[in-house]
């Protein structure tokens, strides 16, 4: 199902609808779909930076639990900005969802990991055979888990991999229903505290070639109508990221409420991911420039191919479809 962004976008009901594109025009409302992930966007939300940047514009923050819901919301035209992980993002672009990538928020490091029960006796990925491992299907963790298995040449069908939402994990863990879980913060910390042990982290998986991260997408119609607003929002995120890096202590306190963790735990979680500021976006490792596309496009292509292999999506388009969705041009002055 290939579709150009234009045709797909017009089917969605546009909210900040298009008249003619004029410089500096502002929408009435900006709807931001965020996820609770300790990065610059959450920081910006906690500090109210967007509200400051766009006085007179209504800023609606809508919380999402998964990239799947963000995809659905953008497809239905319900939000303008969204944050997705690489697998749902790749699948969204592959399926022609009407959005484009304007920002890479973070690269996942140790914040996602395979945690197993100490008493289960699992020492390595090879010991997983016949065990029950939970993860959230379609998420970055799911992708990393399957990638890790592939890297070690383990047949996933020898393991009982079950689909659970992260918040449901601690209870199943306590009851001993699962031997392990590949998941993110804050749940990961809870599992570790309850007798867990890390087997492999997304950082290690990424080093072997299966990088995961979270990036921002913007509805195609919206960026067509308000390219300046997107640029200004990038500034907001940059500001948030800078504060996040420069004032980790204050940042952890501000974020701890959203995350539902203590400031100390928050700080730990913050250290486990790599957040990117605006200047890093055009790095060859990430977006690259319009002339010299970075590695992110091929990463998404590889992720999409993997999803095809998993039979989650029907087909993956060529890499230039992904490249086209990456709006590195926003960063060229």
């Amino acid at each position, binding site marked *: 199902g290939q579709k150009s962004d234009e045709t797909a976008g017009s089917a969605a*009901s546009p909210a900040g609808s298009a008249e003619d594109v004029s410089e500096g025009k502002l929408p009435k409302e900006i709807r931001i*779909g965020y996820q609770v992930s300790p990065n610059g966007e959450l920081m910006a939300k906690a500090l109210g930076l967007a509200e400051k940047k766009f006085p007179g514009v209504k800023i609606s923050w*809508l*919380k*999402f639990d998964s990239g799947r*819901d963000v995809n*659905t*919301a953008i*497809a*239905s*035209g*319900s*939000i303008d900005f969204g944050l997705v992980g690489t697998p749902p993002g790749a699948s969204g672009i592959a399926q022609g969802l009407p959005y484009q990538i304007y920002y890479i928020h973070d690269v996942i490091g140790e914040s996602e990991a395979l945690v197993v029960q100490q008493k289960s006796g699992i020492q390595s990925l090879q010991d997983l055979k016949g065990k029950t491992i939970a993860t959230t299907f379609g998420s970055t963790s799911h992708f990393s888990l399957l990638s890790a298995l592939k890297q070690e040449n383990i047949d996933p069908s020898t393991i009982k991999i079950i689909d659970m*939402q992260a*918040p449901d994990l*601690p*209870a199943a863990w*306590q009851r001993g229903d699962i031997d392990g879980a590949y998941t993110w913060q804050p749940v990961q910390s809870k599992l570790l505290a309850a007798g867990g042990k890390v087997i492999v982290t997304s950082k290690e998986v990424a080093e072997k070639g299966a990088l995961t991260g979270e990036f921002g997408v913007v509805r195609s119609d919206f960026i067509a109508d308000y390219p300046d607003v997107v640029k200004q929002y990038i500034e907001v995120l940059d500001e948030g990221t800078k504060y996040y890096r420069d004032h980790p202590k204050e940042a952890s306190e501000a974020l701890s409420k959203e995350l*539902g963790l203590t400031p100390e735990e928050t700080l730990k979680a913050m250290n486990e991911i790599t957040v990117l500021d605006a200047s890093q976006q055009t790095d060859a490792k990430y977006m690259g420039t319009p002339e010299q596309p970075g590695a992110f496009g091929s990463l998404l292509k590889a992720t999409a191919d993997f999803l095809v292999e998993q039979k989650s999506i029907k087909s993956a388009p060529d890499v230039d479809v992904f490249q086209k969705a990456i709006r590195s041009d926003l960063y060229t002055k």
Partner: protein
Amino acid sequence: MAVKDDIRSAARRPAKESGVYFAVSACSVIAVLLLWWTASRNPWVNPLFLPSPADVWSAFADIAREGYKGSTMLAHIGASLRRIFTALLLVFVTAVPLGILCGRNRLIRAVFDPFIEFYRPLPPLAYYSLLVLWFGIQDTSKVILLFLSGFAPMFIAAVYSARRIPADRINGARSLGANGFRLYAFVIFPSCLPDLLTGLRTAVGVTYATLVAAEMVAAVSGIGWMVLDASKYLRSDIIYAAIIIMGIIAILIDSAIRLLIRKVSPWIES
């Protein structure tokens, strides 16, 4: 030879006896509460699994006083009820006329029947993601989900009630000069009304049962969302409190409709 006309007394329920049964019910509720209390004091019961009644009460008091995540308790309840009642209103104004028409005319019924029969048993969650795709994440898709869940029972009640109007009643009305729209307005609709209200009870039940599902995607308000959010953080005390609130609201709504039924159709024993 005079036959005495007996004007039957409408109510003949023994009022005293029902008091006994009420007492028994009250006792059994108290017994279960006591059991709960004892069990939750037992050290080997994980408070995560079974918070004590005191915990639940304090969670409730907390929510009532300070609200839950940005809205007061009444606002949460109000958000849910607004969604439910909007959906029910839509259900009533669409399912009732369509159902009555289908009940009176087999051809029209034959047109709509296959779709109703097909979608009726579908789990609402199965098509919820399609609704969100089509109607967005705002209240629209939530209300439509609730509407769809309530439509089928209301429609079926309307069809059934229109079908079971005795032929004699319709014929009698026609012989008294009623026909066309006036037959529907003055005879068929009032004949159906008690059944329609009973159908409404069912529809409310089904809609209510779908509430939590409807508040699953992108909500930040509503009592259903509260349960889901609390369960994300394993706040059993809040889950219990919210469940109890939900149960009480449901019983209140149901009693209200029952009262309405009794008021509207005093000749029906319910």
